[in-house]
């Protein structure tokens, strides 16, 4: 066993961190507030992957890391460990969501109808270059309808179950601290469904998209159609010391169901996350839909996609390869040189014929 010592490392590390931070300049409360106000979808993505909902902390993490998303998520996950868990809220239900966007690609006449909500799905993608010439880009204001949309919308899946298209979901009596939690227990395979859905909720968006896209392109067993997609706000229902349940506020959530034909019925894949991030939940629901019976090593196999979409672990593993591996690499070189020498020696003195 050998070690390599680095001289001057402490100073170099200190200066390298200063160099990284120098590019960003001062981090001020105003900068954090501006990031929070101007980039809600980036904030949502970071909160979802960090599994920690607080817009101010997410904006601060982005400011502090210069937008290096893996660092920002790592910073938030690390900070999270400094906080006590005060409570586990009541489970959020689809029917209880304060709904901003709700569409279905499978059925046009879903109960409650379809509202597009905030989306750029149907927009021309034109860069507002006039801003670079000194002009201000002011979006046109929304023209509100005379009457409000219903805050709560019925479940498409429940309607399908009532019509015999789906097997209805079985009520789960597990609540509170009894709900399996991957932050407190290991992820083992075959995974508990609660672990699978929690892992997908906190998974890295790009990783989930890559593997979900692979399944959508044909490397999966099922072709997804979006049964229901929602962007909404969920109430955080907690309990007062006197036993009264109340909402401590709302958080943004995204939820997707994808559907495929199975025999003479339909089957659903499901995913949800903190914040509004519909690419992630559609891709994650596609993986959930395809997981059953997926062959070992396929992108749709549960162990494969859960291990490879955990952003903090995968980015950490990836970047660890740039850290000094001098001794192990030298050992590989020694073995290679030894093999070469043995081969050369063999070629020089061929074995005598028998």
């Amino acid at each position, binding site marked *: 066993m050998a070690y390599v010592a680095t001289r001057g490392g402490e100073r170099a590390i200190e200066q390298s961190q200063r160099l990284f931070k120098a590019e960003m300049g001062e981090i001020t409360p105003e900068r954090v507030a501006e990031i929070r106000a101007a980039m809600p979808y980036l904030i949502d993505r970071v909160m979802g992957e960090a599994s*920690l909902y607080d817009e101010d902390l997410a904006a601060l993490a982005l400011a502090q890391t210069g937008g290096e998303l893996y660092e920002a998520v790592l910073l938030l996950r690390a900070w999270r460990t400094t906080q006590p868990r005060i409570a586990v809220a009541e489970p959020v239900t689809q029917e209880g969501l304060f709904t901003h966007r709700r569409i279905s690609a499978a059925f046009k006449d879903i109960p409650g109808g379809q509202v597009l909500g905030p989306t750029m799905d149907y927009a021309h993608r034109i860069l507002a270059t006039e801003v670079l010439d000194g002009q201000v880009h002011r979006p046109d204001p929304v023209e*509100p309808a005379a009457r409000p949309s219903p805050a709560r919308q019925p479940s498409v899946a429940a309607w399908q179950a009532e019509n015999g298209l789906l097997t209805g*979901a079985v009520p789960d009596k597990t609540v509170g601290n009894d709900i399996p939690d991957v932050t407190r227990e290991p992820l083992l395979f075959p995974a508990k*469904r609660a672990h699978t859905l929690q892992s997908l909720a906190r998974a890295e968006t790009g990783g989930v998209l890559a593997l979900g896209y692979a399944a959508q392109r044909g490397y999966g067993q099922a072709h997804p159609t979006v049964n229901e997609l929602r962007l909404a706000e969920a109430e955080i229902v907690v309990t*007062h010391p006197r036993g*009264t349940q109340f909402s*401590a506020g*709302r958080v943004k959530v995204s939820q997707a169901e994808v559907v495929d034909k199975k025999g003479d019925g339909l*089957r659903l*894949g499901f995913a949800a996350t903190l914040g509004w991030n519909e690419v992630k939940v559609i891709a994650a629901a596609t993986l959930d839909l395809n997981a059953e019976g997926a062959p070992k090593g396929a992108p749709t196999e549960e162990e494969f996609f859960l291990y490879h979409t955990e952003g903090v672990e995968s980015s950490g593993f990836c970047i660890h390869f740039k850290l000094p591996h001098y001794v192990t690499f030298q050992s590989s070189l020694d073995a290679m040189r030894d093999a070469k020498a043995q081969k050369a020696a063999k070629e020089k003195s061929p074995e005598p014929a028998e």
Partner: protein
Amino acid sequence: MTALPQTLSGWTHAQQLDVLARADAARIKAFAEPLIADLPEITVIENRTGLVMLPMRDTAQGTHFHLGEVLVSEAHVSAGGQEGYGMRRVRDLEAAMAMALVDLAIALGHAPEACAAFLSNEARAQSEADTETLRKVEATRVDMETF
């Protein structure tokens, strides 16, 4: 014997707490502060930030799973044999304490008219904000026809 905690006329305890948790931070602090002088000696049991884990119900199989944790501020106080409790989203210990103090004041039957007026105003503001949001959402409704 300790008296039962009171609630405002026409309100349930849950409704009071829902409104207080979403009340404007500056306004609830301004409202709660003058209440302190007329309340019995207050014991602060807790005033901290922490996390609330938020589970969700999966619509495919019905499984409860964890979406992630939400940062909250919490305050728990007692006075005159009653408790006051506040929990609000975000990192604002003063706002959580203000909520707990208003909850305590109501439980003790202190300044019920002022508390009712404050809650009514906040409830109206919250309802108006929700309606305004939902009117904008309704503007994006689509009706589809098959040809």
